[in-house]
């Protein structure tokens, strides 16, 4: 993939379909395995879900912007919302145990953190929260087996 691909859409869950399809098409053309492709798709959907639900509070007047960019050996994805942001440093230090079935929420960031090679947050003044995801692109032969 050369260049940058940008998606911008209102905060509505129905657009997750489009994000999933575009993400799938982008990843398919990259040199990466099936497992890594799934991890990218899952993480991007998590970030966009958070942007719609928490960032923009499902307000359809507020847009979500997703930027895909391939940089040498990695795919970089940025997801921006128009929200007030949150104390991500505090959240990252206190991520709830994902196996605790008493918690029905709070696994999205855990999933992104563990499926991507890099996860970062940035508050953009006058705009909103930006989530930055990076995944190293590996040969298709490697990393395709889920081990127990």
């Amino acid at each position, binding site marked *: 993939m050369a260049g940058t691909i940008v998606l911008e859409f209102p905060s509505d*869950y*129905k*657009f*997750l*379909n*489009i994000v*999933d*399809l575009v993400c799938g*098409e982008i990843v398919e053309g990259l040199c990466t395995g*099936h*497992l890594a492709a*799934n*991890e990218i*798709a*899952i993480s991007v*959907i*998590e970030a966009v*879900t958070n942007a719609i*639900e928490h960032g923009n509070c499902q307000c359809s007047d507020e847009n979500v912007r997703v930027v895909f960019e391939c940089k040498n050996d990695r795919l970089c994805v940025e997801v921006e919302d128009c929200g007030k942001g949150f104390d991500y440093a505090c959240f990252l230090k206190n991520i709830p145990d*994902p*196996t605790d*079935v*008493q918690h*029905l*929420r*709070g*696994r*999205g960031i*855990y*999933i992104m953190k*563990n*499926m991507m090679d890099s996860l970062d947050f940035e508050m953009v003044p006058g705009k909103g929260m930006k989530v930055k995801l990076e995944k190293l692109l590996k040969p298709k032969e490697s990393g395709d087996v*889920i081990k*127990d």
Partner: protein
Amino acid sequence: MSARCALGGPELRIESREKNGVVILDIQGKLMGGPDAETFKNTIHKTIEKGGKQVIVNLHGVDWINSTGMGILISGYTTMRRSGGDLRLLHVSDKIQSILYVTKLNMIFKCFDNEDEAVASFANG
């Protein structure tokens, strides 16, 4: 991006059937929160009201799921366990498997690829 590209797609649909005393919930669509949570929760409560304690959630028709959708399944699991029953998963896709694995929820949910084996598993405890 032809027919696959429809915006939104179908709402979550759940059909309930029974096999050897085990309730099988066939799910179609995307499990991602919002009204889906209420739909699934109502189905689980109706199942319990009818005396159902052994539930298999058939995910064959689920394109994808997010962490909110995973929370919906966890809610169903805990509800069934509290009522003395259990909830197991059937036909888990690669993507859902990846989420279960990374969150270690694969240690909580029993997953099956074969419906008869899933049904028979309740007889084995």
